[in-house]
């Protein structure tokens, strides 16, 4: 996002080399002008709002949100936009006063915007201190992953009364960093809040109200099973369902233990006040959703059932709700930030929830690297071992491209229980099935040709239907195979692109944002055709994931992916393990 576009997203104004003195004078002038115009004699401000965007893409939609927000809560806003990817340059800053157009009164939003290109986040705290209104509570709102463990975060925290972030913006594993902040004795003054937790308020309300009648309250201590259905997100068990589970556990005094996968759900058996409670987190698809709960069923030992199937988002309070004319999504976000701004105290329930949530959290093992002399041979051994260690159908997703070709030929020569295999293709090019680029053609020529595998055991993408339809039909085939639940393969074989892509999930591509279905068509850009691919939640629900990385050209990306860089391949974690199998060329000596 360039500076101009970014500007349009945040506010009016002209970026200029930073001078706080000038900015404050500008703000005074703007206010005086407006005051004369509107006859305002007295300005009221309830909050300092410091918004720190971890990157320029985090400013999207921010202007509208802040404008509306300040209409309800007169704020002085300081928006700091970090741009770590940009070249180091001069700090830019400007002020603006936006008056709300469609309200009866003049509601004005005072904004100071700072743009920090390159690694200049360390200068932000001093700028914040210089611009805050005295004595007014300060709320810092972190858009994107907060820079855990940096001076920037520590110092802005010092200035804040309330710290708001959204755990949907970072991997669940980072929630431990949040927990560390919340429990740090130097941060006992600050109240922390997670927007993902806030979004659960309606769920909590709905669930709590099930147990309000006294005879139902008694049932709480007799619960035998609680099932939470949820849509996966970037994490197999995303923050919202996890926090919901943590909330129940901490409120009801269940001793939390980590979840494990069992057939179709993440399960933890917790010891409750009077017996064992089975907590089941069941991934499901629900269109247009991601990372949120969609249903809850609680059963008592006596067989009584309590359920919530839908939670209607609550409307915003007040009389002009019918006329606000806001997009429901904006209204919802607004409502939530409004709640954050209207409370400043520490949320003890959240803290206890977070603690329990982290204890029940499902954590896939960190990826392992194994360097081998012969990539295809080693991969075939691994695959065979996986296949033989379990009984019944073995569901396998294959990688395409040139690297695994020899692996498939080798496999075909082996004496394997072929009848147990059910084979899908992790991705496919949108070309006819006999096209040289077709992944299916490669699989047919190697695996199918050389083994006793039957063609109905291999599921191809029906590319002749066009990309979108092909993706839809493949998802239906997966639905039949996995009884409508999100697919959980026994093994997915994956390649690694020099740009960090895997399957056909390319950096920045829209398919990376798909969490509500198993497949996606991924257009590569004008004239480059399309790819068809399994989506991230499917890869992350697989029992194991195995990357095949061969050749000198992959050395650099392999190192960066393993270091946790921002690539699609770094986001893949098999439930029981992720193995990077690399040949010596791909693996530099220092790894």
């Amino acid at each position, binding site marked *: 996002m360039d500076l101009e576009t970014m500007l349009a997203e945040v506010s009016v104004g002209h970026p200029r080399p930073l001078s706080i003195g000038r900015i404050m004078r500008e703000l005074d002038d703007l206010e005086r002008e407006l005051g004369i115009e509107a006859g305002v004699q007295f300005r009221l401000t309830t909050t300092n709002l410091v918004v720190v965007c971890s990157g320029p893409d985090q400013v999207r939609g921010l202007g509208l949100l802040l404008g509306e927000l300040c209409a309800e809560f007169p704020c002085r806003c300081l928006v700091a936009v970090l741009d770590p990817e940009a070249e180091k340059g001069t700090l830019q800053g400007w002020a603006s006063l936006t008056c709300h157009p469609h309200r009866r009164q003049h509601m004005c939003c005072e904004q100071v915007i700072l743009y920090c290109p390159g690694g200049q986040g360390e200068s932000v705290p001093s700028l914040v201190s210089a611009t805050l209104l005295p004595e007014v509570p300060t709320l810092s709102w972190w858009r994107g992953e907060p820079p855990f463990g940096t001076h920037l975060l520590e110092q802005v925290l010092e200035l804040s009364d309330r710290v708001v972030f959204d755990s949907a913006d970072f991997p669940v594993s980072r929630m431990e960093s949040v927990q560390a902040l919340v429990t740090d004795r130097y941060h006992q003054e600050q109240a922390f809040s997670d927007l993902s937790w806030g979004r659960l308020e309606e769920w909590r309300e709905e669930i709590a109200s099930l147990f*309000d009648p006294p005879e139902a309250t008694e049932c709480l201590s007799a619960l035998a099973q609680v099932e939470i259905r949820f849509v996966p997100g970037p994490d197999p068990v995303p923050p919202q369902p996890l926090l919901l589970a943590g909330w129940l556990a901490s409120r009801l005094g269940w001793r939390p233990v980590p979840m494990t996968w069992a057939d179709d759900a993440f399960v933890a058996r917790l010891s409750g006040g009077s017996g064992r409670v089975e907590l089941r987190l069941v991934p499901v698809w629900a269109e247009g959703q991601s990372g949120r709960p969609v249903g809850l069923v609680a059963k008592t030992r006596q067989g009584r059932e309590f359920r919530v199937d839908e939670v209607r988002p609550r409307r915003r309070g007040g009389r002009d709700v019918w006329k606000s004319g806001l997009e429901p999504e904006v209204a919802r976000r607004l409502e939530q930030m409004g709640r954050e701004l209207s409370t400043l105290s520490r949320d003890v329930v959240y803290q206890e929830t977070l603690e329990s949530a982290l204890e029940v959290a499902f954590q896939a093992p960190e990826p392992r690297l194994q360097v081998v002399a012969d990539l295809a041979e080693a991969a075939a051994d691994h695959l065979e071992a996986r296949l033989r260690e379990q009984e019944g159908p073995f569901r396998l997703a294959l990688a395409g491209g040139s690297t695994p070709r020899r692996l498939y030929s080798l496999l075909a020569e082996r004496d394997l229980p072929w009848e147990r295999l059910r084979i899908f293709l992790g991705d496919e090019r949108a070309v006819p099935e006999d096209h040289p680029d077709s992944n299916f053609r490669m699989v047919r020529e190697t695996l199918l040709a050389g083994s006793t595998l039957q063609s109905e055991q291999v599921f191809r993408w029906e590319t002749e239907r066009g990309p979108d339809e092909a993706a839809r039909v493949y998802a239906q085939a997966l639905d039949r195979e996995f009884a409508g639940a999100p697919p959980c393969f026994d093994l997915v074989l994956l390649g690694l692109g020099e740009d960090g892509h895997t399957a056909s999930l390319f950096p920045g591509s829209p398919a990376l944002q798909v969490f509500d279905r198993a497949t996606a068509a991924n257009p590569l850009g004008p004239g480059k055709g399309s790819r068809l691919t399994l989506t991230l939640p499917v890869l992350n629900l697989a029992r194991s994931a195995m990357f095949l990385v061969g050749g000198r050209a992959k050395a650099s990306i392999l190192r960066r992916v393993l270091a946790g860089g921002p690539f699609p391949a770094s986001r893949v974690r098999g439930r029981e393990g992720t193995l990077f199998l690399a040949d010596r060329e791909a693996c530099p000596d220092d790894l």
Partner: protein
Amino acid sequence: MILENPLRVGLARTCATEPCAVVIFGASGDLTWRKLCPALFRLAEESLIPREFAILGVSRTPLSDEEFRERLRQGLPQEADPALWEAFSSRIHYHAGDHRDPQGYAALQERLEELDERHGIGGNRLFYLAVSPADFPIIASNLAARDMNRPARGWVRILVEKPFGRDLVSAMELNGELLRHFDESQIYRIDHYLGKETVQNILTFRFANGIFEPVWNRRYIDHVQITAAETLGVESRGGYYDAAGALRDMIQNHLMQLLALVAMEPPARLDAEAVRDEKVKVFRAMRRYKPREVPGCAIRGQYAAGHIEGTAVPGYRQEAKVQPDSQTETYAAVRFLVDNWRWSGVPFYVRTGKRMPRKVTEVAVQFRAVPHLLFSNTPEDALEPNLLVLKIDPEEGISLRIATKYPGMVTRVRWVNMDFQYGRAFAAPSPAAYERLLLDSMLGDATLFSRGDAVEAAWAVADPILEAWKSSPEPTDSYPAGSWGPRAAEAFVEDEGRHWRRI
């Protein structure tokens, strides 16, 4: 033992509305579709009504459920969410019957039991009496005759609208009738003024700020003015109004409630009994005038023809359903005294009127002037005392008048108003009074409702004035529509060296 629901901890609502049926007597009247239904629907939008819920309209007009729903739909804005209305309206029912007829209550009871079954309501009932006060006792005894006042399970509450009596005797009779069949804790007397957000804000202002309470007494406060002015005339309420008058219609209930909120001692807790105990103490401390004192303490007026915002309007006696020789007051100004340690000698001037130049409701607290004049360049009369105004209508807010130095080489004092406007500070709109009151009655929180003893205590203060006016040979003063009331009202304040605030 009652178990606390551990899942409620930390939620915005610490208690939930219990399942209940709202039974509206007089359901075919305007109040139901204009106020009650929209308020209940707004509560539904915010998921504040219980999930097991029903509305049963009761009235003589024969209507089907469908027709009744259609009628209620008219009161909602076009934009109301159709899906929510669908769900909400499926819980609206209608029962045709005469609430005066005891025979009809068997069918009503049956209907309610059927609704209990259908909507899973555990027998809780909220009876809303949107009927003439003369019918309150009739409904109460008819309900009692079938034991519908104290059911075997659940709770029963009745909500009644004003007027609650027309003097002390009738109020006591009415209370007596209701209390024969219901406990005081079951009776919710609506004073919709108390449902207003800004009225509730008076308590927050007084007891959440540390700096005002120390000066909130006779040492620092000179006097208090409470004004409720409206530009409207009696409109279509001529029949009722002509028998009531401004003192009964506004002062005895709404404005005395405001006065009590301003004058009360800090309650120990913010619960219904603690707050209402303190308010009733104020009423009991208010001076009850002797008949001969009334002319000096209370002024009445009646509007004559005049102009409102440039338009010619008729006088009160020319209005529909008003007696041509009516002496009923459309304006009343009373000097109340609260005889206790805090307020002894501090007059509370309360005025209300129809056909005033502007629509304004406010409480103005005038502090004492500085004891010694330091600024010789300032003409003495320019040194006004500090004034704190709690504005209720139409712009809700608070303004404080303070003295500052006018810029320049010489010291000159100028008065400025620090103006805080609710609507500018928080654009979040305030819930309407009926929403809050209906929700509270479902939750069983009676804080914002008038208690029987308070109603009686307020009548005891108003009664001597009404009595004196009734027996007075003096005709009611008249004032032209569009003015601030009769001349005498000015005089009676000015005699004490004060003047009405120019609003």
